[in-house]
């Protein structure tokens, strides 16, 4: 079937394109219902305080006010990870950051709700504020949370794969570097919004701009103590997500509760300032990276420590922590590896998953360090990488299973297209090129909560009209998940993708899909769609074969017809074929589902990092630096991405270019900075930039020329061979820019954002570098001792206490037959 694909791989308009260009896509804030009330949240002005009292008496009698809620109305905590149920829909007796919600006013209009917020009297007892990880380590008391590994350490983990110290001791050279990655935020253009209401039958319904309706569904059931089948969550198309709408949020739970209490629709739309408080963006991460190499540049071991500034809540933080160590091994062969990661609580909006979740920061360090190694050993950085690429279909030191890997082709492509060999170390002063590579998941191998259920489900309904309706919990956040599903079904059933009707992201109507995160939708929902479509095709084929009187193998689907492959005139319309099938077997509905392969990593923490496949990317960036001012411009980017197969090349290229764009923002300007108010103003820790005016992001004028190549080596685990493209292409850009700056003016900027003043500072520094100077002492736990596969291990830690298996041992893949296209 792959020989003559009609839809897959062809550039075409996305199925939701027309609605989007007409302004007809209905985002959450575009929804309006009769008798709808409006909700506003009173948010803490202190970064850390005990709430002595919250008095809402005056607000309750304000004009237009229907309801005022406080923490007392929400006794149950919630959070995205089962191990970090530390958020309160409204804070009960403590606020942990500026912006924490204390009370909610539900009123006839937004204006009336805002006015009533001013009438709520809060008595705060201000507590010590912790502003970053280093302070958090030095300040165990007061604890921001009463759980966590110790003091204000949320999580400290240590994993060791082989005797790293011995390997480093025997290395010809050991490179030790410190890097710092500043936090930044998603800045999706759409602010979070939600509407809660009661269906006519009294069931709760929540519309929300969320990437993860299934997890919101679970959080509502838990925090409101409701039976899940009495709750419906509808994910509206997201006006950009990038990871920022992956957590269940307090405002969603509040409007759901308010709708239940008032019996009326209740809407909230956050202001841009409030979106900065939601955050869940890139963790600020300090890194110490020690890498041993032989004289020929081959890596013998890596020792990585990461320190994450987690902010005020757990969020995805435990996963984020493991992700800062999970994927160092999947690009270049690292025979022995040690990773220690620590996440601290601080009084700031919580870090979470932003595009590249946790892997971006250490990738930045690793790719700069490789550049330093290449320069020190007199090797071309491209060659240094090419000589030690991980083998396809192999296990890494930390037991990640790599399937196809087209990193070599990616590097060769960008080297050739950019003229790397003629440019590196050869451009005039002030101009330079830098190269970097990366890898990312095609879907997390494990769900957020332990279970043995499918990660993705698709149902198809076919009827005599010829219409195919697809039901899937996947959530359209702009990345094109609807288009992927429609394209796959259209390919298999010989239809035009624009003719497929999609019902997605609705927990009442659609089978569960875990959500639009970890670049999982194309691979997982895509495979489920293949299975459902193949089953439908079989049913229709049988009826058509009988009607045409031809063997079933000859029945072909194309151009909305079903016909004899050997005599295409002999056939019928797709609708007639479905009619025949409906008459033969009754109503037609098929299902498909997908669950990833069982991971080889059996040690604790090995649940973060495994994926059915990894995508790979290589990039060369050209920069121009003015040594007098430090001004940095990026005129050109060459990028090649190992995508397996581009299902719709228009959208795939858009994801690559969008990733490059977002990376430029992180590399050059974006930073989530906080500052302390002077003591007379409470010494509070507040955002420096809680607005789009001051949080700078790239405009049309900063966008360089981007030369994109999609490298297509089909991946057996991917639908039609496809891998992810939404996150991976962001990763190599920041280190490539840092490396290019070195090539241009000879200074190392070992942190982001790389701003002109830092380049100037580095040019004046004795060591020609700007970056962190020290890594604080962390009380690391004893590392789990997991021998790498080539040292006789079985994926388990030698020193780990046996755990109860929380996943059914069967590990049967639900859709193995559909993955070998």
């Amino acid at each position, binding site marked *: 079937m792959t020989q003559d694909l009609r839809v897959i791989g062809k550039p075409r308009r996305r199925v939701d394109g027309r609605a989007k260009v007409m302004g007809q896509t209905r985002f959450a804030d575009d929804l309006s219902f009769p008798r709808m009330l409006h909700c506003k949240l009173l948010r803490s002005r202190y970064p850390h305080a005990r709430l002595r009292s919250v008095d809402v008496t005056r607000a309750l009698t304000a004009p237009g006010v229907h309801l005022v809620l406080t923490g007392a109305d929400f006794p149950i905590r919630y959070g995205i990870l089962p191990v970090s149920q530390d958020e309160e829909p409204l804070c009960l007796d403590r606020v942990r950051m500026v912006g924490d919600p204390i009370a909610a006013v539900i009123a006839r209009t937004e204006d009336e709700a805002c006015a009533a917020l001013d009438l709520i009297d809060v008595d705060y007892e201000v507590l010590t504020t912790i502003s970053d990880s280093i302070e958090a380590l030095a300040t165990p008391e007061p604890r921001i949370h009463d759980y966590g590994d110790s003091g204000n350490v949320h999580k400290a983990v240590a994993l060791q794969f082989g005797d790293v110290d011995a390997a480093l001791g025997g290395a010809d050279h050991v490179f030790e570097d410190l890097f710092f990655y500043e936090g930044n935020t998603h800045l999706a253009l759409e602010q979070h919004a939600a509407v809660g209401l009661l269906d006519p039958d009294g069931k709760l319904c929540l519309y929300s701009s969320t990437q993860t309706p299934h997890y919101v569904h679970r959080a509502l059931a838990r925090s409101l103590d409701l039976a899940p089948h009495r709750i419906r969550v509808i994910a509206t198309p997201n006006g950009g997500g990038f990871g920022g709408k992956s957590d269940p949020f307090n405002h969603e739970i509040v409007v759901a509760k308010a709708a239940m209490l008032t019996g009326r629709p209740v809407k909230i739309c956050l202001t841009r300032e409030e979106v900065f408080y939601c955050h869940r963006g890139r963790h600020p991460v300090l890194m110490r990276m020690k890498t041993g190499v032989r004289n020929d540049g081959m890596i013998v071991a890596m020792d990585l420590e990461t320190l994450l500034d987690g902010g005020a809540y757990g969020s995805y933080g435990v996963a984020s922590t493991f992700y800062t160590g999970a994927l160092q091994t999947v690009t270049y062969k690292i025979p022995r590896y040690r990773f220690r990661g620590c996440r601290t609580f601080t009084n700031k909006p919580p870090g979470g998953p932003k595009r590249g979740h946790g892997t971006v920061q250490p990738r930045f360090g690793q790719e700069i360090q490789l550049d330093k190694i290449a320069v020190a050993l007199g090797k071309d950085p491209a060659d240094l990488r090419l000589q030690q690429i991980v083998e396809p279909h192999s296990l890494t030191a930390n037991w990640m299973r790599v399937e196809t890997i087209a990193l070599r082709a990616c590097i060769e492509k960008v080297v050739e297209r950019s003229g790397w060999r003629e440019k590196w170390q050869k451009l005039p002063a002030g101009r330079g090129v830098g190269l970097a590579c990366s890898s990312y998941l095609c879907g997390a191998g494990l769900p957020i909560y332990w279970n043995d259920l499918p990660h993705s489900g698709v149902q198809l309904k076919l009827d005599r009209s010829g219409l195919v309706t697809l039901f899937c919990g996947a959530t359209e956040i702009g*990345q094109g998940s609807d288009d992927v599903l429609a394209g796959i079904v259209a390919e298999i059933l010989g239809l035009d993708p624009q003719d497929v009707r999609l019902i997605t992201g609705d927990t009442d109507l659609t089978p569960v899909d875990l959500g639009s995160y970890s670049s999982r939708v194309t691979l997982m929902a895509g495979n489920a769609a293949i299975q459902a479509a193949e089953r439908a095709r079989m049913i229709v084929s049988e009826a058509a074969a009988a009607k045409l009187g031809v063997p079933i193998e000859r029945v072909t689907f194309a151009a909305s017809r079903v016909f004899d492959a050997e005599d295409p005139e002999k056939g019928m319309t797709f609708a007639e074929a479905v009619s025949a099938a409906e008459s033969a077997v009754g109503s037609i509905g098929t299902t498909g589902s997908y669950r990833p392969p069982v991971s080889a990593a059996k040690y604790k923490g090995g649940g973060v990092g495994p994926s059915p496949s990894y995508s790979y990317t290589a990039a060369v960036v050209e920069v121009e630096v003015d040594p007098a001012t430090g001004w940095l411009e990026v005129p050109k980017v060459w990028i090649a991405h190992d995508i397996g197969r581009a299902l719709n090349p228009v959208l795939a290229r858009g994801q690559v270019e969008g990733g490059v764009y*977002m990376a430029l923002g992180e590399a050059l300007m974006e930073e989530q900075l906080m500052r302390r108010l002077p003591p007379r103003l409470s010494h509070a820790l507040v955002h420096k930039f809680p607005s789009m005016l001051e949080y700078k992001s790239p405009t049309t004028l900063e966008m360089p020329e981007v030369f994109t190549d999609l490298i297509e080596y089909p991946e057996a685990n991917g639908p039609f061979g496809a891998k992810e493209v939404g996150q991976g292409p962001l990763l190599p850009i920041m280190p490539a820019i840092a490396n290019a700056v070195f090539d241009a003016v000879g200074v190392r900027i070992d942190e982001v954002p790389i701003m002109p003043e830092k380049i100037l500072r580095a040019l004046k520094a004795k060591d020609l570098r700007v970056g962190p100077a020290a890594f604080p002492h962390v009380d690391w736990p004893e590392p789990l001792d997991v021998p790498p596969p080539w040292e006789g291990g079985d994926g388990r830690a030698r020193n780990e206490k046996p755990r109860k298996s929380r996943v059914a041992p069967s590990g049967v893949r639900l859709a193995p037959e559909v993955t070998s296209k």
Partner: protein
Amino acid sequence: MLVNGEQVEVLFEPYKTLLEILREDLALTGTKHGCELGECGACAVLKDGRPVLSCLLLGVECEGAEIVTVEGLACDARLDPLQEAFADCGAAQCGYCTPGFLVTARALLDEKPEATSAEIAGSLSGNLCRCTGYIQIFEAVELAAKAMGETKR
């Protein structure tokens, strides 16, 4: 005001912005709000043919004005060439910034049907898009300009 070719009369509080009137009083939700302070361009509409930021413009300033929003770009059920090109080129990913880009590009091409790449980038520099990296937006505007040029000939 004349909104998308139709004469409308709206009664509103004097502090309301044009954006609020369009979205809340006229149910024209195609125009978006992104930043509340004129930085992102998601709220752009045409006022008397020029792109304006409707979140910074009071409704009372628009009395008698001709306003065009994204809903007014298509001619009956036929899409504007810019809309066709945006849909075909991948210029709309999440689609939230798209209405603002479309009307801004519309004003550019009305004034300069053969705008250069630099002029396109320059005229769209007040609109932020977090998804596309702008390149497919540039391509769409160029494609639409070409399509419109061919129709004229």
